[in-house]
C-alpha cells in the first residue's frame, strides 16, 4: 500500500513537472514576431493598446506583434536584467527619465535614420530633447502630463477669487495669497492647498522651471554642477511658507502621495491639490456625487507656465534584429488618431501636434482643454539625463526637501545640502 502511494506521488510529481515545461516559441515560416512590452495599466489604456496591436496584426501578416504586459512598478529592474541577458522585448515602453542609463549603456537603438519624417515632424523639438542622450535619439516620447491644480469648484467660486486660465494664470505670489484666502473658511482643518509631497523632488524641479529655476547647470566641459539660485528657491520657498508661515497648506498632506490627499479634497478640507494631469481619472471615479472640480494651470513665474515633464516613451532594443519593423509599428501606434486613443486611455496629453489638435481633446470636460493649452509650455524635466541624478534624488534631495518643507531646516541648510552634498554625489559619476 505504502509503495503504491509512493509510486502515485512520484507519478503525480512527474506529471506536474512535465506540465511545467515550456513551449518552443520559434517559427520558421518567415513571419517576424516583435515583442511589444506595454506598461499600460488603466482599463481603457490596456484596451486601446491591445486593440491597436490587433489592428496592426490584421493588416501586417508578415510582421506579427505580440503584446506583453509589463508594470510601472518594476520596469527598471526587469529591463536591466532583460537587457543584460539579451532577452529584452523588441519594443520597450518606459518613461524618458528612466532611459539615460539604458541609452548610455548601449541597450537601446539609436532611432536617428529609422524614424519616419512624419513622426519626427509631428512631435515638437522640446519633446525629442527628453529622449536625446549624447548624439542619439533613444525613444519616441508620446504621452506626457503636466502638473495642474485640481480645485474644488464650489469653494473657489464662493470665495470670489479670480479663476486662473492658461492665458492668465496666477503668479506664485498670487497663488500664495489666494491659498491664504481659501484657508479662511468656516470649519476645522481647512486649508487652501495640500501638497502631496511624499516624493517631492521631481515635482519641485519640474514646477521650478516656471520661476526660471534650473538647479542643474551644464558647464563648458560638459560636466553638470548643482546650483541653488533665487529662481530655484521660488517654488520650495512658496511651499515652505505656505506650510510653516501662512498655515495655508496642510502639514499632514506633505507626507502622503496624491491618492492620499483625495479624501481630504473630496471632504472640502483642501480647496486645491497640485497633481499630475492623469489623476483626473481617479478623481472622476472616486468623487462623491455632486462634487464639482476644475482643472487650473499651475502658477506661473518669470518663465511663464514652463514646467518639466518626463514623457512616456517607446524605444527599440539594440539587440532586436528587426529594428526597422519595430519602428514601423511605433509609427503605426503613434498615428495622430491612435495617439489620441492612447492619450484618452491614460488620461494624459499626447506629444504629437496633430493629436493635440484633435477636437476630442479640446473639450472642457474633465479639464482636457486646460491640459492641451499647457502642452506648448512643457519642457524636458531638469536633470533627467544627468548621471547620478537618481542617487542625488534619493540620498540628498528627498530628505533635504522633506525636512525643509516640514520646517525642520532653513533655506541656507537646504541650499548647503542640495549643492554641497549633491555635487559630491555627481562628482563620483563625472570623473574623467
Amino acid at each position, binding site marked *: 500500500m505504502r509503495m503504491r502511494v509512493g509510486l502515485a506521488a512520484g507519478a503525480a510529481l512527474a506529471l506536474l513537472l512535465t506540465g511545467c515545461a515550456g513551449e518552443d516559441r520559434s517559427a520558421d515560416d518567415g513571419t517576424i514576431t516583435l515583442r511589444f512590452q506595454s506598461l499600460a495599466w*488603466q482599463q481603457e489604456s490596456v484596451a486601446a493598446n491591445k486593440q491597436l496591436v490587433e489592428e496592426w496584426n490584421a493588416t501586417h501578416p508578415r510582421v506579427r506583434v505580440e503584446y506583453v504586459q509589463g508594470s510601472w*512598478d518594476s520596469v527598471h529592474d526587469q529591463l536591466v*536584467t532583460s537587457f*543584460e541577458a539579451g532577452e529584452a522585448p523588441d519594443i520597450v515602453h518606459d518613461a524618458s527619465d528612466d532611459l539615460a542609463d539604458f541609452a548610455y549603456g548601449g541597450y537601446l537603438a539609436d532611432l536617428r535614420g529609422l524614424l519616419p519624417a512624419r513622426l519626427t515632424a509631428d512631435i515638437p523639438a522640446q519633446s525629442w530633447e527628453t529622449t536625446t542622450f549624447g548624439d542619439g535619439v533613444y525613444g519616441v516620447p508620446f504621452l506626457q502630463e503636466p502638473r495642474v491644480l485640481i480645485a474644488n469648484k464650489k469653494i473657489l467660486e464662493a470665495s470670489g477669487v479670480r479663476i486662473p486660465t492658461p492665458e492668465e494664470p496666477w503668479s506664485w505670489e498670487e497663488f500664495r495669497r489666494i491659498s491664504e484666502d481659501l484657508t479662511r473658511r468656516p470649519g476645522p482643518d481647512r486649508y487652501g492647498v495640500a501638497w502631496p509631497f511624499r516624493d517631492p523632488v521631481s515635482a519641485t524641479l519640474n514646477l521650478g522651471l516656471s520661476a526660471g529655476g534650473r538647479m542643474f547647470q551644464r558647464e563648458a566641459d560638459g560636466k553638470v554642477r548643482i546650483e541653488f539660485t533665487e529662481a530655484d528657491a521660488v517654488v520650495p520657498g512658496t511651499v515652505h511658507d505656505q506650510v510653516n508661515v501662512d498655515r495655508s497648506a496642510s502639514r499632514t498632506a506633505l507626507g502622503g502621495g496624491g491618492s492620499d490627499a483625495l479624501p481630504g479634497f473630496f471632504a472640502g478640507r483642501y480647496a486645491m491639490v497640485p497633481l499630475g494631469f492623469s489623476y483626473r481619472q*481617479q478623481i472622476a471615479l*472616486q468623487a462623491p456625487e455632486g462634487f464639482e472640480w476644475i482643472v487650473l494651470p499651475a502658477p506661473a513665474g518669470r518663465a511663464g507656465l514652463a514646467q518639466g515633464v518626463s514623457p512616456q516613451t517607446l524605444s527599440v532594443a539594440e539587440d532586436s534584429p528587426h529594428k526597422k519593423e519595430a519602428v514601423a509599428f511605433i509609427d503605426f501606434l503613434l498615428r495622430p488618431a491612435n495617439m489620441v486613443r492612447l492619450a484618452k486611455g491614460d488620461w494624459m496629453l499626447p506629444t504629437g501636434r496633430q493629436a493635440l489638435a484633435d477636437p476630442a481633446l479640446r473639450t472642457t470636460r474633465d479639464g482636457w482643454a486646460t491640459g492641451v493649452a499647457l502642452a506648448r509650455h512643457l519642457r524636458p524635466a531638469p536633470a533627467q539625463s544627468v548621471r547620478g541624478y537618481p542617487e542625488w534624488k534619493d540620498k540628498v534631495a528627498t530628505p533635504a526637501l522633506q525636512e525643509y518643507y516640514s520646517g525642520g531646516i532653513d533655506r541656507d541648510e537646504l541650499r548647503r545640502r542640495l549643492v554641497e552634498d549633491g555635487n559630491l554625489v555627481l562628482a563620483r559619476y563625472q570623473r574623467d
Partner: protein
Amino acid sequence: MSMRTGRPARTGQYLALLAYLVFLAFPFLWLVSTAFKPPRELGSLHPSWIPDEPTLANFRQAFGEQPLLRAAGNSLLVALCAAAVAVLVATPAAYVAARHRGRLAKAATGWAVISQAFPFVLLIIPLFLILKNLRLVDTLTGLVLVYVVWSLPFALWMLIGYVRAVPSEIEEAAAVDGAGRVRTLVSVTAPLLAPGVAATATFAFVTAWNEFFFALVLLKTTEKQTLPVVLTRFLGAEGVADLGPLAAAAFLATIPSLVIFAVIQKRITGGMLAGAVKH
C-alpha cells in the same frame, strides 16, 4: 509540578493575545474591507470597516481586466512543484547532515546558512544567463528550478533541526528489533519527521507562491505569468493604484496560503505531539 495561574493574570494573557491577533489581522481585514468597497467609499475621509454599499464590482473588474485564474493556476503549479522538489531533495540531505556529523556535514550546514546572506539582486543576472543557456528562460520549469535552489538552503537547515530532534536511540532500537536500514527509515523515522517535512513544504510553497521578482524577470510570455506579477498590473506610475480591484485580487491571492496553513497546521501540531509524548 503544575503552575496555577490566577484569573486576572489569565485574563491579561488572553487580552494580550487578542491584541496581538488584531495587530496581525489588521492589514488582512483592511484588505477584505477595501475589496468590497465601491470607488467613492475608497475616497472617503472617514473610511468605515464595513462598506456602506458592499459591492462585487472590484472582483468583476479584477477578473475582467486580468487573467487572474490562469495566473493563479500557474502560481499553484509552480509552488507545488517547487515545494515537492525542495522537500524531496532536502530531506535525505538533512538526514545525512544530521546523523553523520563529519566535516562535510558541518560545511554543508554552514554553507546553507551563509547562502541566505546573498541578496537576490546579485544572483538574478547570472541565474538568468544560466537558465538561458539551459533554454529554461520563459518556462515554468526554469522558475521551479530557481525556487527550489532559492528555498533549498533554508529547507535543509530547517529539516536538519527536525532530524536532530528525532532521537537516534529510536532507530537503534528498531535495528535491535530486526528492522533493516530502509524499514527503519520508512516505518520509524519518516512518521516522526512528517511534521518537519510538512512545515518545510509549507515554507517552500509560500515562498514560491509569493515570489515576485524572479517570476517577473524570467517569464516573458503573458500566459505563463504568475499571480504576484499579474497583481502589479493594477499599479500605475508614481505609486498610483487601482485600489479596489487590487485589493480584490490580493484578497483572492491570500486564500491558497490560508487554506494550506489551515490544513497543515493541524498535522504539524498533531505530528509534533505524537513524537513528543511517550505512550
